[in-house]
């Protein structure tokens, strides 16, 4: 974990990775850089925000919101993650 010397990051604000950590065990909606979105139960993540998800549904946004449902666990590569939405249900299709 990179620790920064910047003192101006005060503790009274909400740290992004803390919010993700609070989401462990709940549903989370991941938006990728491209038109793909993933909804699943968050089991954990690492420093690079690679994520382990369970009971996963994969959505393609462009072609009329096609859906691919996967079960069990997946490891989602954090390279292409743009947004994480705790408690999100995914796109409405």
């Amino acid at each position, binding site marked *: 974990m*990179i620790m920064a*010397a*910047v003192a*101006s*990051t005060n503790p009274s*604000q909400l740290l992004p990775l803390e919010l993700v950590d609070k989401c462990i065990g709940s549903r989370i909606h991941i938006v990728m*850089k491209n038109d793909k979105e993933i909804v699943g139960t968050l089991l954990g993540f690492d420093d690079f925000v690679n994520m382990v998800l369970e009971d996963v549904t994969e959505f393609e946004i462009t072609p009329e919101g096609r859906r691919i449902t996967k079960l069990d666990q997946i490891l989602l590569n*954090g390279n292409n993650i*743009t947004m994480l939405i705790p408690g999100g249900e995914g796109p409405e299709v």
Partner: protein
Amino acid sequence: MADKEKKKKESIFDLSKYIDKHIRVKFQGGREASGVLKGFDPLLNLVLDGTTEYMRDPDDQYKLTEDTRQLGLVVCRGTSVVLICPQDGMEAIPNPFIQQQDG
């Protein structure tokens, strides 16, 4: 260089002045979002509240009014962020680069 030994990661920009302000964020891949900045870290991961996402359609290019959706509280990955600015810090202007074509 002696200061390579104790090189600390300093932000060149302080986001704390944007806390609780409405900001606009652009991402790699063309996505845009705006929301109230609730938190951030030195890696530029952000917490945005009341987030609205705008998506760029291939036909519309810059038309953002279509295809907006409300996302609520989101975490934005710093590795994906390319631009942060105040929500009212930008406006659309007519293209200044258009030149008159002669015959």
